[in-house]
């Protein structure tokens, strides 16, 4: 391997690593606030990419129907809760869960989706897929928010399976690519960089900085941080865990969909692509101990690089290498973080 190849591999690793880093951040965030190990994170990547592909091909995105379905369930659940609590006001809030998808579907029908500029198509994708995040929290996790981590993990896996199955129904077995944000190519010495790669890396950086600002500067961000540090304390201070959960899932879904939109021009995305992508983001998150954002991002970047180089040296063993190397990292993490058991 010469220096040039190493450079190209590094570039490839960083591009994938940037996506893994975004996902790792979302996973850390979700775990810190809700204790949910968010396996379906990867499905938001696939749903985002494939919904955009549908729109590009001028096909009505089937995910909009899922949004409506989720809205119906949320409304039913909320209505049930309201009736039991004897309240009235929330009825109005519940209505929004129906109204929003209905309006959106109407809008999608009336719009010439195929002729929208790319930015418009991306926006539509976000409008369709991202709200599923908080809805998912409401339906799947909120009823068992106090359950042990293990139960939440298994629920996550079940939700992941259901979403993959739905993905096959919506998008079919074949994959899609979307058109790149930029056709530019830059030659730097022996290597060249595509515009899309720069988009991926820069957008990831911007998102990471934006997240940092959100947590550091805004009231909602601070509320989430407070919840992550001490759930009960935050509740006493008037931060509703349900709101914190929905907000977190909104952010996680946003990050997932943006990741999907960013990578779908450089690779083919399938209905079941999300799992392995998410899992690798996960490995990064684990290296960060599901707690530290910068270490998680660095870990994810490392996974991307490891993957690029091992696919060069021993492509048949790539996954074996990536996933086996997690174990020593995990071991090191659990030996250096001192706390004698008794979670649950």
């Amino acid at each position, binding site marked *: 391997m010469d220096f040039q190849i190493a450079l190209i591999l590094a570039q490839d690793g960083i591009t994938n690593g940037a996506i893994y880093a975004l996902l790792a951040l979302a996973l850390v965030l979700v775990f810190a606030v809700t204790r949910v190990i968010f396996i379906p994170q990867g499905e938001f990547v696939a749903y985002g990419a494939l919904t955009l592909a549908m729109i590009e091909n001028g096909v009505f995105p089937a995910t909009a129907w899922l949004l409506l379905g989720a809205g119906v369930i949320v409304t039913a659940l909320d209505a049930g809760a309201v009736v039991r609590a004897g309240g009235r006001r929330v009825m109005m809030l519940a209505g929004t869960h129906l109204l929003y998808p209905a309006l959106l579907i109407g809008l999608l029908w009336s719009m010439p989706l195929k002729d929208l500029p790319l930015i418009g198509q991306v926006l539509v994708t976000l409008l369709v897929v991202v709200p599923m995040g908080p809805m998912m929290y409401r339906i799947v996790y909120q009823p068992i928010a106090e359950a042990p981590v293990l139960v939440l993990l298994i629920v996550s896996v079940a939700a992941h399976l259901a979403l993959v199955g739905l993905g096959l*129904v919506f998008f079919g077995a074949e994959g899609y690519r979307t058109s790149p944000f930029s056709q530019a190519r830059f030659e730097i010495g022996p290597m060249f960089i595509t515009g899309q790669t720069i988009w991926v890396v820069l957008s990831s950086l911007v998102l990471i900085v934006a997240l940092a600002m959100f947590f550091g500067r805004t009231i909602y961000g601070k509320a989430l941080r407070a919840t992550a540090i001490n759930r009960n304390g935050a509740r006493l201070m008037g931060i509703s865990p349900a709101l914190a959960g929905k907000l977190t899932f909104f952010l996680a879904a946003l990050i997932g969909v943006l990741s999907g939109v960013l990578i779908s021009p450089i690779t083919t995305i399938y209905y079941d692509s999300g799992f392995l992508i998410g899992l690798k983001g996960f490995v990064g998150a684990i290296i960060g101990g599901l707690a530290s954002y910068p270490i998680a991002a660095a870990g994810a970047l490392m996974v991307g690089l490891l993957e690029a180089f091992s696919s060069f040296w021993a492509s048949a063993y790539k996954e074996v290498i990536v996933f*086996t190397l997690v174990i020593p990292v995990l071991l090191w993490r659990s030996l250096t973080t001192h706390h004698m058991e008794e979670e649950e």
Partner: protein
Amino acid sequence: MRSVISPRVLIGAFMLVLLVAPAVLPPFYVTKLNYIGLYAMVALGLVLLTGVGGLTSFGQAAFVGVGAYATAVLTTSSALPGWLAWLGASPWLTLGAGLVITAAMAILIGSLTLKLSGHYLPLGTIAWGISLYFLFGTMQILGGHTGLGGIPAIHLFGFELRQDNEIYYLIWAFLLVGVFTVHNLLDSREGRAIRALKGGMVMAEAMGVNTARSRMVIFVIAALLACASGWLYAHMQRFVNPTPFGLHMGIEFLFMAVIGGAGYVWGALIGAGLIVVLKHWLQGLLPAIFGQSGNFEIIVFGVIMVFVLHKARNGLWPILTRLTQRVIPVRAAQRRIDAAAEPLARRELPIAGTLLLDAKNVTRKFGGLVANKDMSLQVRSGEILALIGPNGAGKSTMFNQISGVDTPTSGEVLFLGQAVAGRDSREIARMGMSRTFQHVRMLPTMSVLENVAIGAHLRGSKGVLASAWRLDRAEEARLLAEAARQIERVGLAEHMFDEAGSLALGQQRILEIARALASDPCLLLLDEPAAGLRYKEKQALAELLRKLKREGIGILLVEHDMDFVMGLVDRVVVMEFGEKIAEGLPDQVQRDPAVLEAYLGGVE
């Protein structure tokens, strides 16, 4: 009075049904029952590992694969070296080989990943589950991704188990042996240690349980069950390739255990049965409703799992038993205490007045904060010493230095002349120091008797195999008799068979004393034993402690309740701001101005 049925009758009826099933059921149902049996065996391992031991594994399918591949390669390959080739002569030899390989791998993987705490462990299992799956596919000797065919059928007493209704009996015999092994294991000395892993590790270690070893034991057993399932699978399928051993199957096995009831041995069977039947049913039903275009099965399956976890987190087995109980009342398995069991050997107590505990100039700093400063105290056999002081005086920190949970910054603690620092809780327990906890630590779903019996862990020696195959009954009877004796002694006899979690808080503290006594200590450390007790109960406790003192045990009390302490103890040490401010007889101390000031907030 309703008639009550013994559980044995139900199990007998179940076995009978199993026996005749292949004769009366359509052949395809027998096929399904075979798969249920195979899956239940893996799920059974997960019940032990996850439901009972609290260790979640997504990687069991990989161990199934190891079992299946071991026998597939050994029985079909013609390219084996001579020293291995003899194994291929019979599937029974390859079963042995598979179990040995699996055990070795489980010990290797376990020693790497079982140290992972909390949620790292399930993620670690995902990692090695995926790694092994891809290894199966890349190794040419294992037939690569395409797989290995032509695996012979199993021969048993000259019969070839070729048809589904023939191998059926073998599969279910394996499963039932597995169920009874696990069942027996859990109901034993080792079993109590295993059951303490989930939420009681600190306590179990303090009672002398080697929790790391117990974790490894259940990990290996679960892997061996999976391996046996894989061996049967290979000889039933007579073809292996990597796809049945991937992560998705690992997930499915975990689902089976959880949906059936991960805490219950029979939950594995219910879960495996339910999932196989449900899938079969969905496969027929869903295409009829939605048409052929999609994987609706997995969607419905996912949704059902979410729903079950919302509504029945402990799985279906407890619900099922409750419902059955209404129709057919089954007698709860009642423990009998064999009062005639030979008492356990006792430690020879030091003669009264021997120096047991000697804390010398103990200082403990946390950063800039000095929690204990230059503390010294001594406890002799046959005396009760109270350590008292206002809130935040540093009593708990001192207690931790003495019990070996924490290590002093300077100074030392000697127990029977040996330094406590650097020894783990188990060793200290073995030396004869036993303790209770300020915040009660017990296993709420286990009976009072079993909780106390954990205290006697170090007084038994029968291991896993003896427990699994009931060679431990004599010792078990002695352990339980000892536990019962201690329970009677502390006055909880009427609650002996109740769930420990149903006791009042004060009673739970008493339970902890009984548990500590079951370890036959020479020094008893009690952390606020009287908190939450009513007057009568306090009197009884005081009486008990006096009796123990007369027997020659040394007792260190950390207490708030002055009335309780003053009438009971021989000497008192008073702490404030991490320092000793007074020491002496109760009467002297009570009149000490420094103590009065500390307790009354200073006399201006």
